[in-house]
């Protein structure tokens, strides 16, 4: 274990401290105004917890945090508190000034979320004098408190943050947790009601797609932006085979493999023309392919029903049991996820997974090691497409009606985002990513308008704070850990011992 040396922070002169306090306060005030203008603040105000709303709480934390950041340069406790208080008051003044502006002039024309109707909320529905008083007093206290909190040694904070890492080191704990999670996933759904069953089902469908795209992008390193195409092909195949559209009523156990096989076929068909493409070019072509499939479904009206879609798609029935409630679909999706997750896991640790990763790391060297690039690229596309096809079949059977508008590019982007946030190449990462990107928006409906905004913010945050993803794959972890330690050429001191070893 490396010993953490206490870092002596540089003491800043008073003038610089004042400047940084003003800057931090202005930043906090600016962020607060941005949140208000975007309407996020209003959405959070709607969530009450006791006398405060979540919105107020977020602002309070923001001010305290900014104050803590700028106060670290001050020497004494009094100095810190003073710097923090200046920052807090600055933020409060900016906030109150903006609130006053919104209450005196109708900003509705330019800023939709701070019109006359919304403005009084910025004053907590009281008088201007009261609001100014509360804001400034609040800023003062929060700033000072936040600044004093900066005395908490960074080590304590870091230790709290790394608890999860150490929990992972306890033997068998992972296994116990996994078993508990599995039991919960199997036993809990009958008791949590249809809303949660439906939500878990939606997450599961994205897990299916995520696991498929994880093979293409995560393992084989082929950036596919048109992945929704295979989802659409699976869904339409099932819709054609099990609806009045063509009068076909294939049983689910036949239609499912048919949908997967069709998606697989298209995976290969897309794979062939892009065999020689890498990176950005591949991404552009696959992006086009995804759109082509959707537009075909939209415009081949006689064949696909066009924008009216395919209706009255049958429920799946297995062994005489027909799926009718979200709970039934949930179990169907869970079974699919388990199957696909298991297949991914087995492939990853086999010769095939190694060939994919080798290809991703260095295609030329992989080829010179005997990996047939053509075959393994097509295999990756086909496998990934088959998983999406399975997701599509289940999706169509669950919705009972599908339309071209279900298969827009945004679906591809969502799936890509969730595997990046979860951790490229990591199977648990796909699950974590789906829960966050698909599950949270379902639960936090009041923020539906801000979904894309929060997505973007989350992605930026992840890229800065944890680029390897929430649950990085073993290989990524290895790579990053080593990069942190032994970068470049280590000292030659280690060499003689090894040379001696070889000579023996």
């Amino acid at each position, binding site marked *: 274990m490396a010993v953490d040396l206490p870092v002596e922070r540089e003491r800043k002169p008073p003038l610089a401290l004042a400047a940084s306090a003003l800057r931090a306060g202005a930043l906090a005030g600016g962020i607060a105004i941005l949140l208000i203008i975007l309407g996020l603040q209003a959405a959070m105000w709607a969530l009450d917890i006791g006398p405060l709303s979540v919105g107020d709480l977020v602002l309070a934390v923001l001010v305290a945090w900014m104050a803590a950041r700028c106060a670290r340069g001050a020497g004494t406790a009094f100095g810190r508190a003073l710097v923090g208080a200046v920052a807090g008051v600055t933020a409060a003044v900016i906030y109150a000034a903006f609130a006053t502006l919104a209450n005196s002039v109708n900003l509705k024309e330019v800023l939709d979320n701070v019109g006359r109707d919304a403005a009084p909320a910025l004053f907590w529905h009281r008088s201007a004098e009261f609001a100014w008083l509360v804001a400034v007093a609040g800023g003062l206290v929060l700033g000072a408190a936040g600044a004093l909190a900066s005395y908490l040694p960074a080590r304590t904070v870091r230790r709290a943050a790394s608890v999860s890492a150490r929990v992972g080191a306890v033997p068998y704990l992972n296994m116990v947790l996994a078993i508990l999670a599995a039991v919960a996933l199997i036993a809990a759904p009958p008791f949590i009601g249809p809303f949660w069953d439906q939500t878990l089902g939606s997450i599961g469908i994205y897990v299916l797609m995520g696991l498929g795209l994880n093979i293409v992008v995560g393992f084989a390193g082929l950036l596919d932006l048109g992945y929704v195409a295979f989802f659409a092909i699976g869904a339409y195949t099932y819709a054609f085979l099990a609806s009045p559209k063509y009068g076909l009523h294939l049983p689910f156990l036949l239609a499912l493999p048919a949908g997967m096989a069709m998606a697989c076929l298209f995976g290969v068909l897309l794979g062939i023309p892009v065999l020689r493409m890498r990176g950005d070019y591949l991404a552009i072509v696959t992006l086009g392919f995804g759109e082509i499939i959707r537009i075909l479904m939209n415009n081949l009206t006689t064949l696909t029903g066009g924008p009216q879609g395919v209706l009255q798609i049958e429920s799946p029935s297995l062994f005489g049991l027909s799926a009718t409630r979200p709970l039934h679909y949930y179990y169907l999706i869970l079974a699919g996820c388990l199957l696909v997750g298991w*297949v991914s896991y*087995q*492939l990853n640790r*086999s*010769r*095939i*997974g*190694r*060939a994919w*990763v*080798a290809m*991703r*790391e*260095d295609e*030329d*060297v*992989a*080829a*010179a*090691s*005997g*990996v*047939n*690039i053509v075959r393994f690229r097509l*295999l990756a596309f086909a*496998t990934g497409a088959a998983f999406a096809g399975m997701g599509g079949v289940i999706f169509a059977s669950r919705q009972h009606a599908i339309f071209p508008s279900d298969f827009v590019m945004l679906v591809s982007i969502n799936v890509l985002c969730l595997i990046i946030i979860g951790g490229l190449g990591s199977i648990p990462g796909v699950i974590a990513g789906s829960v966050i990107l698909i599950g949270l928006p379902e639960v936090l409906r009041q923020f539906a308008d801000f979904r894309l905004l929060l997505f973007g913010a989350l992605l930026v945050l992840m890229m800065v704070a944890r680029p390897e993803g929430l649950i990085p794959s073993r*290989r*990524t972890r*290895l*790579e990053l*850990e*080593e*990069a942190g*330690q*032994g*970068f470049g*050429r*280590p000292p*030659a001191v*280690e*060499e*003689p011992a*090894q*040379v001696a*070893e*070889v*000579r023996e």
Partner: protein
Amino acid sequence: MSAILKVEKVSKRFGGLLALHDVDMVVEEGSIASLIGPNGAGKTTLFNVISGFYKPDEGRVILRNREITGLGPDRVASLGIARTYQNIRLFNAMSVLENILVGQHTLLRSGIFSSIVRTPQQRREEEQARQRAIELLRFVGLQGQGDATSRSLPYGAQRRVEIARALALQPKLLLLDEPAAGMNPGETEALIALIRRVRDTMGITVLLIEHDMNVVMGISDYVTVLDYGTKLAEGTPSQVRSDKRVIEAYLGRGVSTAA
């Protein structure tokens, strides 16, 4: 002795640049052969032609009576030619052991189905592959380093991992592109011993590109000299060393006459 590799009248053009011009070369079975020449002479280009990365514009490459001209790198690899690279190219996201397992790709048979269900045969194959990889690590002097990542190893060790990955292919012919580049004298000495053992205990023919003349003259049975894409000279190390044209190419005209 018979020839394991024959390069016949090979030419390779990049736009207006004639990188290789009518190059002939023969590598005898069981020998250690070297390819030398000043920078830009076309040595690595010839390696790329042999290993299938480039298609020659003219000429043929023959591996033990079998023409391999124009075959892709994966086909050439499966026919028994393995190689290393001038600048180390290991798979950084993989452990050392996994790198060597990738090298065994062509020896393993399990396909997608047997990999998913992990048939007993697949398990046995994987276990054998793992054992072979561990043996190879021992062979190159890196026992117990299988779980390390390539980047955490010292430079000389990374070179040996690359050689182990190439040997994992069980090749007939091993191409080494500047294996001693950047090594200190101790490492170089160990490398020479390793190359000898590759030939003597594994029976693999070695063709290497090298600038370090101590290496070249110390281990080569035969040396071929390239300059400006053409073959300048060939012969035993002592013949090449005393060849006037070679000295000129390396040191410039006038030096040989002065000497």
